[in-house]
């Protein structure tokens, strides 16, 4: 058994998986994303078959047949999904369906950095009247207010009695 040969093929299975990963992460067309998934699965099944050769029994091959079955199921379901999504919005763009994610999230990952530290926003009131610091009360008005304050208790008792 050629050990290096199996090693090369294991790495090649990894290469196929990486190609599928890049395709899945970068592509925006739904169909090409599913094809990338199939590429990843074929890399995995290649690895399983090489393992079967290394271990010299059929376990890996049976598992590869399972992977093949699941890949076929996945292709059928994915196709049905694409067709029914296409009926609602005639586009294959995945970004057309990004309201299925959290709608408060920003569209592009760039804006995530703005989300990480939320700025606290307090409600602001419209300023009314004069600023007491920049417009101090004239002394005459001050005296009038003091006089009114001194008469307040009597008024207050009247109000209470009336009530």
């Amino acid at each position, binding site marked *: 058994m050629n050990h290096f040969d199996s090693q090369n093929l*294991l790495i090649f299975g990894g290469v196929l998986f990486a190609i599928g990963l*890049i*395709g899945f992460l970068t*592509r925006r067309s739904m169909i090409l994303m*599913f094809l990338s998934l199939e590429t990843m699965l074929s890399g995995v099944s290649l690895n399983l078959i090489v393992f079967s050769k290394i271990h010299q*029994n059929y376990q890996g091959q049976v598992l590869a047949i399972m992977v093949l079955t699941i890949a076929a199921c996945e*292709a059928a379901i994915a196709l049905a999904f694409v067709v029914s999504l296409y009926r609602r919005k005639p586009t294959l763009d995945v970004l057309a369906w990004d309201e299925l994610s959290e709608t408060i999230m920003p569209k592009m990952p760039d804006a995530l950095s703005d989300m990480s530290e939320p700025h606290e926003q307090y409600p602001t009131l419209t300023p009314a009247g004069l600023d007491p610091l920049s417009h101090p009360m004239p002394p005459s008005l001050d005296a009038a207010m003091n006089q009114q304050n001194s008469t307040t208790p009597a008024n207050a008792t009247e109000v209470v009695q009336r009530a």
Partner: protein
Amino acid sequence: MESLTLAWPLAQQAFDPSNLPLVTGSPIDGHFSNAMLLVIVVGAVAYWCLQRGVVRSKPLAIAGASLFGLACVMAFSAIPKPTTFPAENSFSDYLEPVVKMCFCLLAAGGGLGFIVAREPVHAALGFATCVLSTCGILFMQHAYFIAAATMIVYAGATIIIFLFVLMFAQQTKLRIYDVELTRPAVAAFIATALLITITYSVSDEGEILPTKMDLTRSRSLAAISNDPESVLPPAMQPGMSPSESAKFVPSKTSGLGRAMYTDYLLAIELAGTVLLVATIGAIALAQKPEEGVS
């Protein structure tokens, strides 16, 4: 500090460029992953250049393609060649790794075309190339049934149906979602990290012993083949000599069938059930909604 002085010669040895088989041309022994590391990084750069150059500038695309070629040549020179030929079958022994290599290159090129091409039909054709070449590799690994099944399922059914949907949905002009890729540099970085990890873990030296099959169940493959009246070769036992165990390369489709319907009968039944459920689900999902149902 002491550990640093201990570790430094090891690190030096690990990263010494003269240890790279690419540079010395010596047979690979334990330094395989160093050469592959370089190949992976060059491949990632080639992908980045190609995906940008395909839409932006032609020279960049040419540079990316030549970088990919360079990565392929480096990988080819890093892979050990057979040094001694056995007297018989020497030509086929020499030819087999070359053909396997060609399949690998074709599959990698098809995969690269698949993730780079902006025209969806071209991308699907790249995928078909990739999968068909992978089937060739599986065929050379003596997995005949799986090679045929993969060819039928992927290259036959999947590609045809996906091409059908592409034609069904495709307008004449290229769409923005076909042209624009989301963050190819980040994706290439993630894939590079993954591949480097895989390469290092795979390059670990060590013997992998053949695994004995389960003898306890009366209907299992191993038990059947250990029956003295059986026409099958006896099941492999641990402790066999390499020449003896070389006879047990799992290459027979009949053996795979026996394993499937004896040792893995329940799993096969489950797979059939999953296929049935998926068929029903696909029909239910793809039905046209009734009027007034949103």
